[in-house]
């Protein structure tokens, strides 16, 4: 079974790069959804089934940390794992994210392998039963890593 992934980043090119990296990782993807900030992400989450969120922190309107806080306060949304992909590399910021329940943390600049590793780790933790199922034909691209 494939996973619906929400990519949240104010940079359109970064969203494209993340989508490409995930597509090449071998993770079975159902649909990609895109948001340019936390507000847009919450609007998508209100009406769409999302399995995992990949989000930047430093964004206009609503940043990733506030998005994570809103998600952690919502009984349904808090079940969705959120992974930060961000330049915010300080220990203090990572600790703040951990306290709010972040599922993973990837620092930019990143190697594609880092995204693949954390994504599998988080998905296995949250949806082990679904990863064991055979991927859909249209989503089962071979890994290029």
């Amino acid at each position, binding site marked *: 079974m494939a996973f619906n992934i929400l990519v949240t980043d*104010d*940079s359109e*090119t970064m969203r494209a790069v993340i989508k490409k990296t995930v597509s090449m990782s071998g993770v079975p993807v159902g649909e990609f959804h895109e948001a340019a900030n936390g507000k847009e992400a919450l609007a998508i989450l209100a009406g769409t089934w999302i399995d995992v969120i990949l989000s930047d922190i430093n964004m206009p309107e609503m940043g990733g940390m506030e998005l994570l806080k809103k998600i952690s306060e919502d009984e349904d949304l808090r079940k969705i794992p959120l992974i930060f992909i961000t330049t915010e*590399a*300080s220990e*203090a910021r990572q600790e703040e994210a951990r306290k709010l329940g972040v599922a993973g943390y990837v620092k930019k600049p990143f190697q594609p392998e880092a995204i693949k590793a954390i994504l599998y780790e988080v998905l296995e933790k949250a949806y082990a039963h679904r990863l064991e199922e055979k991927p859909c034909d249209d989503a089962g691209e071979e890994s290029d890593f």
Partner: protein
Amino acid sequence: MDEDLRRVIFATFSEVFETMFFTFLEPLEEAPGREELGCDRFIEATIGYSGGCNGNFLFYFPWELGKNITVNFLGVDEDEASDSQIIDTAAETANMAIGSLLGKLDPGGTALLAIPKARLLAEFSPETLLAASGLCMFNTEFGILWVVGTHA
């Protein structure tokens, strides 16, 4: 700008450019002569941070360098990279470079990074940057990357 800060900037920017764009930077100690610096198309990207420490950095990418890193970043052909993607990539590059730098200069996370901005400069001469005190220059295969920064 002191030499230690210059060294940290070079190491940090090199990591970003090599990891994300397969582009190698070489620090340039001396600027080219004024007669070599004509007007050309550049992208100006700016980003700052404030809090426990404060800083502001301006990046000037020759258009060809901006195009090349965009092509490498997205993994597309040269004619597939749009102008808006090239400008967006310059902003994201500034974000990654200064975000990584801030992680080293401010490990306690007391400063907050602002949102990067980028714009196209249709006719720009780097000659105007030569007198700037925080000027760093990096040679690349696609021209000189000019950076003017302050950190306190």
